[in-house]
């Protein structure tokens, strides 16, 4: 993905990579589209079999390669197609989110959510919300860049 850069011609728009589980959230996104709901065109959807398929590698790599925000969405607890995938993912994601915040990454950059196949409206609302949150924190500059000086030029 080309890095999003603010130019005079095109103002910066958030780029959000959305990992959607194929059984619930992807269908929810589909419903939002079929229902002709409008939401900001800021997301790039990646279809995954289950929210527990999403590894911390994927989330970090998306940010490293130019995304400004990442959304991971799966089935509500109890609705997982694989019964317990989302519950295992939930444990992983809370540690991930806390460690990211601890190391100084803005909390708004990574978001987790449960969206079912019938929640097209909720999906559109979620994208509107995350787009505004990411817009508020601005473009992602890369990890370990926020120093007083450029320690890498020493």
């Amino acid at each position, binding site marked *: 993905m080309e890095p999003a850069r603010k130019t005079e011609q095109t103002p910066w728009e958030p780029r959000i990579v959305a990992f959607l589980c194929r059984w619930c959230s992807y269908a929810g996104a589909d419903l939002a589209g079929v229902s002709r709901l409008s939401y900001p065109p800021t997301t790039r959807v990646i279809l995954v079999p289950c929210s527990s398929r999403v590894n911390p590698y994927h989330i970090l*790599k998306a940010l490293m390669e130019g995304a400004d925000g990442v959304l991971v969405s799966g089935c509500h607890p109890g609705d997982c197609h694989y019964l317990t995938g989302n519950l295992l993912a939930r444990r992983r994601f809370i540690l991930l989110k806390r460690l990211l915040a601890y190391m100084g990454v803005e909390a708004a950059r990574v978001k987790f959510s449960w969206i079912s196949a019938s929640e097209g409206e909720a999906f559109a609302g979620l994208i509107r919300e995350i787009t505004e949150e990411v817009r508020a924190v601005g473009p992602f500059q890369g990890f370990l860049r926020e120093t007083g000086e450029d320690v890498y030029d020493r």
Partner: protein
Amino acid sequence: MTGSAALAETLRKVFKDEKLDGLIGYAAGTTPLRPRPAVFTAPGDFDAAVFDGFCVQNLATYLRRHPDRRMGILVKGCDRRAVTVLIQERQVAREDLFLIGVPCPGMLNRARLLTEFPGLETGGVAEEGDTLTVAAADGPVSLARADYLLPACRACRHRVPTDVDLMLDAPPFAAPEADTSLGELTGGIDGMERRERAALFAEELSRCILCYACRNVCPFCYCETCFTDTLQPAWMTPAPEPNDIFFYHFNRMMHMSGRCVACGSCAWACPEQIPLHLLFGKITADVAELFAFEAGLDETTPQPMSHFSEDDPDEHIG
């Protein structure tokens, strides 16, 4: 106890009596204040055995390298807990091991001593009770042992190994038990502004050269192919670029969650003295807080990351 004849004799006796194929312990190293791990395989080897306040490295790391052998291993509290985790993960079998426990006196901060007393050699720090006598350039200096403990050791609550086959006498030197916790060690950072936290880690991790000493020394980094080494997909570029450094440390910590016994070997091994206890301390404290789990205490409690509860916290979902 450094290089004491009594230690050599005890280990030699165990080696013979238990008909061990090898015994993993510590021997004098070649750099100041850094004993090296040693695998003793013959009765004559044991004269080199040492145990002092610089035997930081977790010896459980070496167990997987000797499959199908009956191995003895010298264990402090953290080594013992690492062995438990390895047994849980079916990397070693308890019946192949002979565990020789040693009540840990709390390990010393080699880097700090060498900075404050340049030119210090092995043997330059005499340990007695709760004091250290350092052979400084301008005469001996007395220090409180508790002030020179490694961060992980200051927070350690499990110094004495449990369920061992033979327990050695406590060494004649020790610091008082924990005066802090992993949560306290990292709590200061939690309280900072986000920008301060980001700047702190950017500064500390800027020294990382991706040498992977922290990975290689870790008892739980035993994957045949590490994510750092795969080319298909290439998660990382091999150059120490900030994104890659972050990716490496962050993901290593994710892999440590629910497994790390906070032995501090990674921080000890780091040639750049990056305070890695801030990372493993955070993940360990979070696992304890969220899932009420401490690694390596009990073989039968399932590891939290291979497990879930319907009542797990969901403050992060929304």
